[in-house]
């Protein structure tokens, strides 16, 4: 009996996965190496709003092309 899932799979980072999702909706983007963008080296929240998360893990960035959004950063709670 064989499983429907493939025995081999490609390990992808979160920005790569998100880039694929964006590609499906017709938005071109390039995933970047982690900790290479300026936005990753500073505060992720301004703390203007109350109850924003304190402990955050940076998962990387992706550069968006031809849109008003310049860069997308993926973060994880905790």
């Amino acid at each position, binding site marked *: 009996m064989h499983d429907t899932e493939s025995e081999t799979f490609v390990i992808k980072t979160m920005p790569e996965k998100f880039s694929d*999702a964006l590609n499906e909706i017709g938005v071109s983007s390039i995933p970047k190496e982690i900790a290479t963008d300026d936005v990753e080296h500073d505060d992720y929240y301004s703390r203007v*709003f109350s109850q924003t998360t304190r402990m955050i893990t940076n998962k990387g960035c992706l550069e968006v092309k031809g849109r008003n959004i310049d860069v997308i950063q993926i973060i994880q709670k905790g």
Partner: protein
Amino acid sequence: MQDPNPLPWGAQDRFQAHFIVRNKVTENPLDYTARTILSTTGHFGSKKVTSIKWNGGKIADVLNSDTSLCEMITNQTPNDAIISVEPTNEGIRIYGKWKNSFEFGISKELFQIYDTVAQHLKKFTGLTSSSVDSKQESEIKPDDVKEKEKPIKVSKIRGAMPKGWN
């Protein structure tokens, strides 16, 4: 046997995508802060958004004036309709709620919403900076030219911005 009292530390299965416009806010950061407030009907699974309103600084008025944007957000689920805009030192961030790894993704409509908000942010920052520049230019005298060349000190954005934050 599984630990009945697991320790509550470590990264959680909650993800968030921040859509960033690389505009550095040198003026009042509260002007660039906004969040949607929803009006809904129903409960739990049948909960639907009936209307939304942007609440916050000056940018909230700009976003409220775009009726097509408000309509697009109204068509989203209650979770996706909660959108926040806030400035940080490296850019203005637009983001929604935390999602688990199964839900984490992006639809065409939701990306269109974020892109439209980013467009308004770019226009808004452009307008305010140009109006400030024109004001400053009219007030500059020939003796003040050297002073103009000095780098402007910009304070870092932290906390809830009390009076006289800069």
